[in-house]
């Protein structure tokens, strides 16, 4: 299962954070600092996986944002990258060529989309069409 998902900018600013395991706020911010410094300092040529504490960090860079997923030791890293990509594609379809600014000003919408894709660290919907369908149905209600 995924323990947490982080989106950080190249300057180290948090754009989205979602923990699926209980973690007090103080620890969350400490983790974010640690993980960002680890990942932002990596060279672009190295692989996308990093061992950190007892977990594995899978990250991918999309334009100016780093999408980081922390998974358990016995999880499939390549699949985690696929899940991240799934999320990014959903965002892309919803916002239409999503960029960082979209995510800054509409962070709450990004969270809603994430809620349609993951619950408790597990994938709930593998069809992008279905995800978007549900999100768009909830939009007029606002």
């Amino acid at each position, binding site marked *: 299962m995924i323990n947490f998902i982080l989106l950080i900018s190249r300057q180290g600013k948090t754009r989205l954070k979602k923990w699926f395991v209980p973690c007090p706020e103080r620890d969350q911010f400490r983790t974010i600092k640690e993980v960002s410094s680890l990942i932002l300092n990596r060279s672009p040529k*190295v692989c996308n996986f990093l061992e950190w504490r007892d977990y594995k960090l899978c990250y991918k860079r999309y334009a100016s944002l780093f999408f980081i997923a922390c998974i358990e030791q016995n999880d499939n890293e390549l699949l985690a990258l696929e899940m991240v990509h799934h999320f990014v594609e959903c965002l892309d379809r919803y916002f239409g060529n999503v960029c960082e600014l979209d995510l800054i000003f509409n962070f709450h919408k990004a969270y809603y989309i994430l809620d349609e894709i993951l*619950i408790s660290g597990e994938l709930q919907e593998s*069809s992008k069409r279905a995800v978007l369908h549900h999100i768009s149905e909830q939009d007029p209600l606002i």
Partner: protein
Amino acid sequence: MSIKLRELIRSIRACKTAAEERAVVARECALIRTAFKEDDNQFRHRNVAKLLFIHMMGYPTHFGQMECLKLIASSKFPEKRVGYLGLTQLLDENTEVLMLVTNSIKNDMSNDNQYVNGLALCALGNIGSNEMCRALAREVENMMASPNPYIRKKAALCAMRIVRKVDEIEDKFNSKIGNLLEDRNHGVLLAGCSLLTALLEVNPSYMKEFRRYVPSLVRALRNMVTSGYTNAAEYDIAGITDPFLQAKILRLLRLFGERSADATDEMNDILAQVATNTEGTKNTGNAILYECVLTIMSIEAESGLRVLGINILGRFLLSRDNNIRYVALATLQRVVNVDQQVMQRHRNTIIDCLKDADISIRKRALDVTYSLVDEANIKSMTKELLNYLLVAEPDFKEELCSKICMAVEKFSPNRRWQIDTLIKVMCLGGNFVKEQQREKFCRVVAATPELHSYTVIKLYFNMKESLSQEALVHVGVWCLGEFGDHLVSGKAVGPDSQPIHVTPGDVLDLLYDVVRKPPTGEKAPATHCLVTAALIKLVTRCPSEFEKIRKLLRRFDCSLHVDLQQRSCEFLELLGSDWDSHRAGILDRMPVPEKEIGGAETRVVGDASIDEVPTNTSKGKPGKSDLLDLNDLLDAPREQQAPANQAPPPSSGGDLLDLLDAAPAANPPAPQATPEGFLDIFSGTPAASQEAPPMVAFEKNGLKVTFFPRKEADGSVTVLARFANTLSVPMTNFVFEAAVPKYVTLSIQPATGQVLPPQTDLVTQTMSCVNSTNGEKGLLMKLRIGYVCNGAPVQEMGQVGGFPPGF
């Protein structure tokens, strides 16, 4: 006036400095707090949204928690939505406030609007605490049977969390699994698989019960893998139908097949199909292949399938993509026990990965390399690992050192190679070799007497080159202390078969250097402690340096480090003259510990052909007669030996030891010229010798012992003892023993006979002595003679001191 969320974000981004940002945030927080206090209903959800943004930036926002609860209780959807978002962001399952939400969640679960239900299920699934889960388990169970797949899938994932959080609740959900797994909707299938995995993890005994679902899982997987799937377009990612569901099912199959042969049979085909049909060009395909290989390796697959799996791994290893290689190495690590030959085939690739630019890959390659090491390839692998040690980063070095040491301990072909390699490791990574490894090395050396000289020579010259590696220095100092006499004896031979000339003065100089510049400044006292121990041992091994040693020890007697001060004071005391006679006994070699040294006891010492540095080892231990105290000899119970009729004469000097042990002399008399186990330095040196006049050593009761001492060219003294029987009756069972002071080494050869016929002096016995004080102190001898005369046993003692000076 409450500003919009957009405005806030814009104004924060417009701030140029951190202080400015803090001011804006503080001002906004104050406004929000006031609005909360005034119970502003209209803009509450906007305020909470702003608060969430501020929270994400890292500012404290606890005052918003109760407002989230109020929003959740609202009937308007947008407010509920923000409320739930705030709930999951600002609270976690350990917050007490969370319990207050339980009722709201319960109401929302029975709401007509499916999206409201969805919100509630999401919240419970993400941050539900133990009590909440227990309270709402029944509702979730009902929702799992809902006709709406949207609700079903969320409820199933909620159930997964409940199963993980609450004990003894699994049975409630067992019956529902079947329906979930038969569902057409992929989301529901995904959720069902997750729930099943969680159930199996929590209670492995369910394995049997749920095994009946394996065929339907296999069927679902087969549908997706074969082309022509109805909904392929919707779930297609990079040409593969729903890779997430495929991976989930593969994982489930792994759990089922792990310990069951029947389940394995059912899945062999589909695994082969997935492995062959999946395209490995993009990450998606590789993710599926990876999962498939993991499953194949974990279950008891048939050999064809296994070969398929290994081939895929081999392909992964050769891929240019770093991610794939990393994953391959990780898998190899897991399956290394399965098939050794195949692993060896890929050995070169793995070793290349050791030199990769990517640190994650290097770490994985190291783990795999270590598992690949066995007796056959230990030498080449160690070479590679040592090369790597040269270039590894510091935080890596420690692990690498310990891994090399462990591998060497397990697999080294012989002792000499083991010691060589360990010395190399210490030279290259000396500051990272742990204490344990150093101790092990010392133990190995101590247990291999044949290599004492070799080791100490090697360490000495390595230390002369560089004193910067701490492990090397510590171990070298210890060895110098223990075996320094080998080094300075003048008998050591170097790699080019040239004799090595190391004087005691050189050794002392080296130790002095260590004292002056210890390898690690902060831990200097530890090094100095070892040096003091070595120094005191060298007093007996290099007696010429007595004064220098005393001076060096004096440096520490006022040290601020308590241990060091104590040591130096005690050792200085030991140098005092009262201890002269006992010192050698105290400072003798350490006994070899009984603990196993990694099964290497049965290993041979090893010949020189393996290494590039052939060195002759000097055989044997130095004269143990140093142990003897003159007094002890005579206290030993001698009675056991004398009356024995056929007690062989204790001819070899080694028997002098036996006396102390009070064991009957079981050693048969060694007929050869030199008794075994003795330092054979003195054999066969031609005589440019110096004869001395004969002297009467003992005369009493008709027995006369005459000594004919002769000084040899190499400094030793050969004494020929002639026994004369002046009586008219023979003396039988004649036993002659001699003991010498500690600074003399003695070796006795067997007597030419055990019976002294009357009126003859035919029987002789040769003794050889080395006076380590080189004549400073004269040669002394105590004698013990036993024989049977006229049927009565006779015991005599005597002392001989009148040796000519210089002997």
